[in-house]
């Protein structure tokens, strides 16, 4: 996926908020886990509880480091059929996930196209009406431009939409048909500014080594009491009892200057936290950031972001930065 196509990141971002865009996210991993014991293996490893859903649905979940409850990866599981699961890790974490749960790495066999935006379904409907009807966090098989695809009502933009897994050899047909249907190609730049406005975590920034789901504000991903537990449960229970030392929060600045990852957050001239992601918000037209801060810093607290010798006033705000559709 390029950083952007012809019109640039800002135009692609706005197209996703107002119309529909397509991202080639084939770089994500797909690990297929199937057969007897597949469900039990996933249940024993991941934090969320697949018993909350059924075949034909998708679930967001975490794989934790067993020793310290760091998030090794955040994952979407597509429950394809009774004993078939497509587990979708971040590309660079596919190996960690494979070693934890086994299964087959089928990443190379398919492309994945994310179709996102308020008009994603209406445009997709012109070339795949059944695909466009697959609901939020549902998974099913449907034709798109005559090609049989696996379609899930998932995404990473804060907009409605679907992700389409298409056999690799046919990916070009589906992509071209989407573009012909008025879906705007969008790149990695817009993918990052969109997920930031929606306050969705990016592994390596808001999740990763030393960061637990509780610190990232994702306690809802943890099914504490499910049968069989999950990797990292003991360490995470300890942290829950102690209370988290830091919490992921949103920051806004008044001007357009983008805060950047690794800039230090100050209160009364003392460092209290660090920015994990920051950029210009194309919809709000000012800078926004996610940062780890002491839990006691309430929404509305004024802070300073210290970056490259410039001190920028900022304020702790509730997330997401833009309303959910």
């Amino acid at each position, binding site marked *: 996926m390029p*950083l*952007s196509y012809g019109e*640039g*990141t*800002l135009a692609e971002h706005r197209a996703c908020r107002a119309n529909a865009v397509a991202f080639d996210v084939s770089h994500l991993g797909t690990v297929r886990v199937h057969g007897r014991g597949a469900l039990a293996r996933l249940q024993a490893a991941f934090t969320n509880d697949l018993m909350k859903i059924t075949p034909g649905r998708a679930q967001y979940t975490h794989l934790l480091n067993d020793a310290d409850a760091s998030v090794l990866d955040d994952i979407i599981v597509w429950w394809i059929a009774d004993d078939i699961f497509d587990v979708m890790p971040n590309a660079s974490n596919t190996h960690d996930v494979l070693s934890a749960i086994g299964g087959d790495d089928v990443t190379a066999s398919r492309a994945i196209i994310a179709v996102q935006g308020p008009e994603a379904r209406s445009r997709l409907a012109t070339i795949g009406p059944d695909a466009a009807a697959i609901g939020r966090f549902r998974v099913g098989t449907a034709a798109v431009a005559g090609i049989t695809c696996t379609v899930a009502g998932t995404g990473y933009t804060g907009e409605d939409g679907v992700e389409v897994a298409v056999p690799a050899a046919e990916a070009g047909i589906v992509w071209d048909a989407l573009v012909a249907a008025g879906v705007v190609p969008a790149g990695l*730049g817009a993918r990052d*500014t969109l997920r930031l406005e929606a306050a969705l975590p990016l592994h390596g920034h808001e999740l990763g080594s030393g960061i637990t789901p509780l610190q990232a504000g994702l306690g809802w991903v943890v099914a504490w009491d499910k049968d069989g537990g999950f990797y990292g449960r003991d360490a995470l229970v300890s942290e829950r009892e102690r209370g988290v030392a830091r919490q992921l929060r949103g920051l806004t600045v008044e*001007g*357009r*200057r*983008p805060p*950047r990852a690794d800039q230090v957050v100050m209160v009364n001239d003392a460092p209290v936290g660090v920015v994990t992601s920051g*950029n*210009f918000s194309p919809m709000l037209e000012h*800078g926004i950031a996610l940062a780890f801060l002491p839990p006691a810093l309430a929404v509305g607290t004024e802070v300073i972001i210290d970056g*490259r010798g*410039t001190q920028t006033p900022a304020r702790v705000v509730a997330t997401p930065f833009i309303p959910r559709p």
Partner: protein
Amino acid sequence: MQIPEDLRYSTDHEWIRIEGTRARVGITDYAQDALGDVVFVDLPDVGTAVTGGASISEVESTKSVSDIYAPMSGTISEVNTDLGDAPERLNEDPYGEGWIFVIDFTDASQLNSLLSATAYRDLVEG
């Protein structure tokens, strides 16, 4: 890629338009394309004395931050305040409305170290 013949260029991908004893400065078409969508320009203050080659400003895009250098020594006599609300002018019109600042230069001999359009084209198309 546009590289107007009547401008001088720096190896830092800035263009310089000589207007008597003043030098109007912006970033090149090549630079704006490499930066991507510009969302913020940190303008220097009018009246600041600058040294040729020193970093005096920053341009931020959705993907990165880049330094802007003074191509010649002198005093900043004008800045493009319109960029405060419309930094995208660096992308849309890099050699026109996307100009960033004007230097009243003190040492005309520094002009000799700037590149011609031909030399700059060789640099970026190498």
